[in-house]
C-alpha cells in the first residue's frame, strides 16, 4: 500500500520550478494545447488515443462509403480501378491499425490504471511516446494519399503483389513504414501497460480480484507484445525488398511468397483477438453493472480470455486454407480453429447468464453491450463455418468473409467501444451523454449495421468475391449491394452521432449550469467510480485498499443481520474527494513528442532519400539523451531521485 503514498511534494495546482535544460525545461503550462502535447497523464493520453482514433475513423469511414457507393450498382464508374484498390486497402488498414486498435488503447490507457487503483502507468513518458509515435505513424501512412496514392495491396498486402514490380508507387512503402512506426508505439505501450497491470495494482488487489476489463487489457497487451515483432520482421523483409533490392519475396530467386502470409498471419490472428478482447472487457463491466449482478463465472471469464489469447497463436493458417499449404496443415489448423469457439462461447453464455435473473436497466451502454453479444455471436458462427477448411474454400475471399469480420470487428468490437463511451463518458468528462440521442443512435446503428453487413453474408454465398472494383449485372448481386450501400449511410451517420451527442449534451449541461456528475452515476462496481468525475489528475487521493472483486460495490452494499443486501452508503458518499493534497505527479515533458516526431523523419528518409535519415537520426539521438537526462522537476525530493538534475548540470 505504500506504493500509493507518494512523496507529498507538490500541492496540486502549483507548478514546480523547472530546471533549465539546455533545450527544454519541463513544460509549465497548466492549460491549453501544450499541456496536451506534453502531457504524461494516462487519462489525457487515453483521451488523445480516442480522439486520434475518431479522426482516423472519419478517414476510414469516408473510404468505406466510397466503396459502398462504387458497389451500389453494377458496372459503376464512380471510382477507377486504381483508386478503388487504394481505397479498400486504406480502409482496411486505417480501420484495423488506426481505429480499432487505438480505441482499445484509449480505453486501456484511461481505465486500466484507474481500475487497478494506480496513480498512473508504470512509465508515464513512455506512455506519451507510445501515443505520439502511433499518431505520427498513422499520419505518415495517410500522407500517402497526397504523395502518389495510398497502398494498393489489400490490408494484408500479399507478396509478391506488394513488390516494387507490381506496385511501383510509394503507397505500399508508406503502408510499410507507417505501420512499422505505429508498431513501435504499440510495442512500447504494451510493455508499459503489462508492467502496470502486473506491478502497480492497489494493495490487496490480487490478480484474481482485478476487473475483467483489466484482465482483457493484460491479455491484449501480451498479444501485442508478442505479435508486433513478427509483423515488424515481415515489414523489414518487405522494405528490404522494395527499397534496398533484397530478394525475400522474389520468386525468381527461389523465394516462397507464402513466407509473407505466414509471418503476416502469425501477427494477424493475435491481432484479431487483440481488437476484440478490449470490447469483451468493456461489456464485462457494463453488463454486470446494469444487470445489478456480479459477472457470472468470473474465473471462467478470465480464463476463457486467456485461452482465447493463447489459442490465437495456433490458428493463423486458417487464413491460408486455399493458399496451398497441404491437407495435413489444413486439417491441423481446422481442428485448432474450431476449438477457439469454445472459450468465446463460454464468454457469450456467461454474459447471458449474468443478465439472467438480473434487474436490467436498458440504457444506451447496456443496449450496445447486448448488441455486441448478439452480433458477435453471428460473427462467431460464420467464423465456425470458415473454420471448416473444406467449406471455407467456397467462402474465403468472398463477401461472406467481409460480413464475418465486420460482424466481429464492427458489430462486436466497435459496438462495445461505443457502449463503453456511453458508460465511461461521465467519468472522463464529468457530464452525462443524452440517453435519448444515445438510444436513437443505438437503433440507427443496429439497423444500419445489419443492413450493411447482413446482406454481405448472402452476397458472399452467392459468390461475390471481395476486393472487386465492379461486378456485372449478370451476376445478380444488384439488390443486396444496393441494400448494403443504403445501410452503410445509415451506419455512417449513426456512428457520428456519438460526436453529436457529446456536443449537444455538453451544451445542454453547461446551459443548465449543472455541476459535474457525481463520482458514481451508474451505481457501478469498480474502482474508477470511487473517485470524482472527471477523474482528477492524480486519480486517487490515497491508496484504495482492495479486499474483494468489485471491491467498491461491496463497500456500498453489505449484508444486514438477516443476510439481506442493503446499501450502506452511496458511491458519492464513499468516493474520494479528489483534493489530492500534496500528491506528487510526474511532470509533463516535451521529449516524448519530440522523440516520436523524429522517427517519421527517418521513415520519409528511408522512402525518399537516405540523406533525410541523418537529421532524423540526429534528432532522435538528441531526444533520447534529452529524455534520459531530463530532471525530475521537483527539487524538494531528496536522495537519488534528484540526481538526474545534478547529473545534467555536470553533463551539460
Amino acid at each position: 500500500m505504500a506504493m500509493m503514498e507518494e512523496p507529498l511534494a507538490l500541492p496540486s495546482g502549483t507548478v514546480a520550478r523547472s530546471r533549465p535544460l539546455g533545450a527544454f525545461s519541463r513544460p509549465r503550462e497548466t492549460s491549453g494545447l501544450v499541456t496536451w502535447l506534453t502531457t504524461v497523464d494516462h487519462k489525457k493520453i487515453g483521451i488523445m488515443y480516442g480522439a486520434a482514433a475518431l479522426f482516423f475513423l472519419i478517414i476510414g469511414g469516408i473510404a468505406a462509403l466510397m466503396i459502398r457507393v462504387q458497389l451500389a450498382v453494377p458496372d459503376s464508374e464512380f471510382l477507377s480501378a486504381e483508386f478503388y484498390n487504394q481505397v479498400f486497402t486504406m480502409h482496411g488498414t486505417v480501420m484495423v491499425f488506426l481505429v480499432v486498435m487505438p480505441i482499445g488503447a484509449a480505453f486501456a490507457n484511461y481505465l486500466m490504471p484507474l481500475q487497478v487503483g494506480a496513480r498512473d502507468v508504470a512509465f508515464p513518458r513512455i506512455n506519451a511516446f507510445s501515443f505520439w509515435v502511433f499518431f505520427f505513424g498513422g499520419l505518415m501512412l495517410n500522407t500517402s494519399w497526397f504523395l502518389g496514392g495510398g497502398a494498393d495491396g489489400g490490408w494484408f498486402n500479399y507478396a509478391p503483389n506488394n513488390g516494387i514490380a507490381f506496385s511501383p508507387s510509394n503507397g505500399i512503402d508508406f503502408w510499410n513504414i507507417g505501420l512499422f512506426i505505429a508498431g513501435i508505439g504499440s510495442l512500447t505501450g504494451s510493455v508499459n501497460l503489462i508492467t502496470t497491470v502486473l506491478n502497480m495494482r492497489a494493495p490487496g488487489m490480487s490478480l484474481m480480484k482485478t476487473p475483467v476489463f483489466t484482465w482483457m487489457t493484460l491479455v491484449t497487451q501480451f498479444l501485442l507484445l508478442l505479435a508486433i515483432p513478427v509483423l515488424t520482421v515481415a515489414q523489414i523483409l518487405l522494405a528490404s525488398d522494395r527499397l534496398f533490392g533484397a530478394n525475400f519475396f522474389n520468386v525468381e530467386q527461389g523465394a516462397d511468397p507464402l513466407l509473407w502470409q505466414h509471418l503476416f498471419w502469425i501477427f494477424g490472428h493475435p491481432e484479431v483477438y487483440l481488437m476484440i478482447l478490449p470490447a469483451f472487457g468493456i461489456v464485462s463491466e457494463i453488463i454486470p453493472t446494469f444487470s445489478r449482478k456480479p459477472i457470472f463465472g468470473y474465473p471462467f471469464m478470465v480464463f476463457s480470455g486467456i485461452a482465447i489469447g493463447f489459442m490465437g497463436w495456433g490458428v493463423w493458417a486458417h487464413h491460408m486454407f486455399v493458399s496451398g499449404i497441404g491437407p495435413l496443415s489444413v486439417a491441423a489448423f481446422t481442428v485448432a480453429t474450431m476449438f477457439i469457439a469454445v472459450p468465446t462461447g463460454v464468454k457469450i453464455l456467461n454474459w447471458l447468464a449474468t443478465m439472467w435473473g438480473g434487474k436490467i436497466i436498458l440504457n444506451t451502454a447496456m443496449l450496445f453491450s447486448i448488441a455486441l453479444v448478439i452480433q458477435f455471436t453471428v460473427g462467431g458462427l460464420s467464423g465456425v463455418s470458415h473454420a471448416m477448411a473444406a467449406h471455407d474454400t467456397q467462402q474465403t475471399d468472398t463477401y461472406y468473409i467481409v460480413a464475418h469480420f465486420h460482424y466481429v470487428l464492427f458489430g462486436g468490437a466497435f459496438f462495445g467501444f461505443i457502449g463503453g463511451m456511453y458508460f465511461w463518458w461521465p467519468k472522463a468528462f464529468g457530464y452525462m451523454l443524452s440517453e435519448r440521442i444515445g438510444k436513437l443512435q443505438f437503433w440507427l446503428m443496429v439497423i444500419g449495421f445489419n443492413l450493411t453487413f447482413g446482406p454481405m453474408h448472402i452476397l458472399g454465398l452467392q459468390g461475390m468475391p471481395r476486393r472487386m472494383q465492379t461486378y456485372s449485372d449478370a451476376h445478380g448481386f444488384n439488390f443486396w449491394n444496393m441494400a448494403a450501400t443504403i445501410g452503410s449511410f445509415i451506419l455512417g451517420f449513426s456512428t457520428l452521432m456519438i460526436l453529436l451527442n457529446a456536443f449537444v449534451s455538453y451544451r445542454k449541461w453547461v446551459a443548465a449550469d449543472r455541476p459535474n456528475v457525481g463520482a458514481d452515476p451508474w451505481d457501478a462496481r469498480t474502482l474508477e467510480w470511487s473517485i470524482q468525475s472527471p477523474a482528477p489528475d492524480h486519480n486517487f487521493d490515497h491508496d484504495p485498499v482492495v479486499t474483494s472483486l468489485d471491491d467498491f460495490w461491496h463497500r456500498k452494499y453489505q449484508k444486514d443481520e438477516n443476510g439481506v443486501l442493503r446499501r450502506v452508503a452511496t458511491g458519492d458518499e464513499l468516493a474520494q474527494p479528489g483534493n489530492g493534497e500534496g500528491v506528487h505527479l510526474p511532470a509533463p515533458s516535451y521529449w516524448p513528442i519530440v522523440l516520436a516526431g523524429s522517427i517519421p523523419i527517418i521513415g520519409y528518409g528511408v522512402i525518399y532519400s537516405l540523406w533525410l535519415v541523418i537529421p532524423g537520426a540526429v534528432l532522435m539521438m538528441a531526444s533520447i539523451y534529452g529524455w534520459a537526462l531530463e530532471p525530475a522537476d521537483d527539487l524538494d525530493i531528496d536522495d537519488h531521485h534528484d540526481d538526474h538534475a545534478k547529473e545534467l548540470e555536470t553533463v551539460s
Partner: protein
Amino acid sequence: MSTTKTRKRSFMPRTFVSRALPVAGAALVLSACADDKPLNTFEPRGPRAQSLYDLMFDSGTWYVMGIVFVLVTFGGIFVAIKNRVDPATYDPEDLPVQTHGNITLEVAWTILPAVVLAIISVFVVRTIFELEEPNEPGELDVMVIGQQWWWEYRYDVDGDGFFTDGNGDGVVDEADQELPLEIALDPDDVVTATEMVIPAGEQVDLILTSRDVIHSFWIPRLNGKRDTVPGRWHTWSLEADEPGKYTGWCTEYCGLSHARMRMSVIALDDAEFDAWLANQQQQAEVPSDPEAAAGREIFANQCVSCHVIDDGEFEYPENFAETVPLVSHAAPNLTHFATRSTYAGGIFGSYAGPGTDPDDDALDASVYNQLSELSQNPDSPDDYRWNTAELKRWVANAPGQKAMASDVNPDTGLGRGMLPFPQLTDEELDQVVAYLATLD
C-alpha cells in the same frame, strides 16, 4: 441512484426484431437458392462442390449454427426484455439474487460445444482429404497458369504428364515443380486461355501456378477455390455433372484489374469435347480472304511480340523461340481465338447472341463448338454474330476498356496488360478483327 434520464420505458421494437429476422433469414435461404446467380455456392453442379455443400448439412453445422443463433439472439433479447426495470422508478436496493456463477453449468457449456465441434471436425477433416484425391489414370490433367489478368490453360492431351511429371516417375512431385513455365509442350498438347473446356462427368485435375502474383482459381459451382502461387505448383480438381457453362472469378486480390480477371469452364459431352480437342490440336490456317490476310500482316507486325498464333508461318522474336509452337507468353495464345466465347480475361463476349453474356451461365454448351459457324451464317436462327465493334475497340485501345498496367517490365519482359494501338486505322482494325474471326 441511476441518473439515467429516460422517462418513458425504452423503445424496444419487438415487432422489428421478431419480424425482420425471420424475413431476413427466409430471404437468405431463398436468394441463396435462386438460380439466376451464376457464381452461387449453394448450387453445386459437380461432385466436389456437392461434397462441400453437403458437408455443412451432413455435419449438421448449419443446424447447429442456426440453433445457437436463435438461442443467443432471442435468448438475449428475451432476457433483456423480461428482466428490465424502469430506471426512473427502480429502487437500487431491489437487488436480484447475486449469483456469482455455477461451476457445473459453466463446465457443461465448455464441454458441450467442444464435443459438438470435435464431431464436426471429423467430417471436415474427412472432406479435406477427399478433396485431394487425384483422378483416375487416363483422365485429363490441365495446367492452370494465372497471370495479370487472365488465365492460361495447358492441356496434357497425350497424357505423358509432360508438365506435371518431368522425371517420368508417374508422380507429380517436387522435382517436377522445378520445370520452368516457358517450356514448350508436346505437339499434341493444347494451350488456350480464359475459358477452360472440359469433358462433363469426368474429374479433371488441375495443376495451378502463376507467372506473377498470387491468383485464385474458383468455379463456385464445381469446386472451392485454390490459390495459384508463383513458384509453387498446387493441385486441385474440377468435375461437372452436366454439360454447361460455369463461370468463375479470380478470388485472390491480384492488383489493378483484379475485378476483371474472370473465367469460365465449359463442360461438353464426350463427343463435343473430342471434337473441340481435335480442332484445338490443329494449327491455325493462313487466311485466303484478302481482308483477313491483310489483318494477318498487321498482326505479324504489331502483335507477335506478345501473342502467339500457331499457323506454322509466323516468325517470332528470339526469346519466343523455345516456346513456339504452343505456349503463350506475355499474352494469350490466340491460335483458336474464334472458338472462345469470351476474351480479355473473360469480361467481353466474342459473340453476341443468346446466352453470350460473359458473366452469365446461360450459354448452351451444345452450340459452343459451332459459335464460329453460327456467327458466319446470316440465316442462323439463333442470331449469333461476331462482336466486331467491341473487338475493334479492344484492339485499338485495350487499356481504355480494362484497367491495365501496360508498360512492359524490362526485367521480366512481361507486360501487365495490352498496349493501345492508336497507330492502327479503322480499316486496319477491321482487317485485324476479320483475321481474328478466321481463327477457329
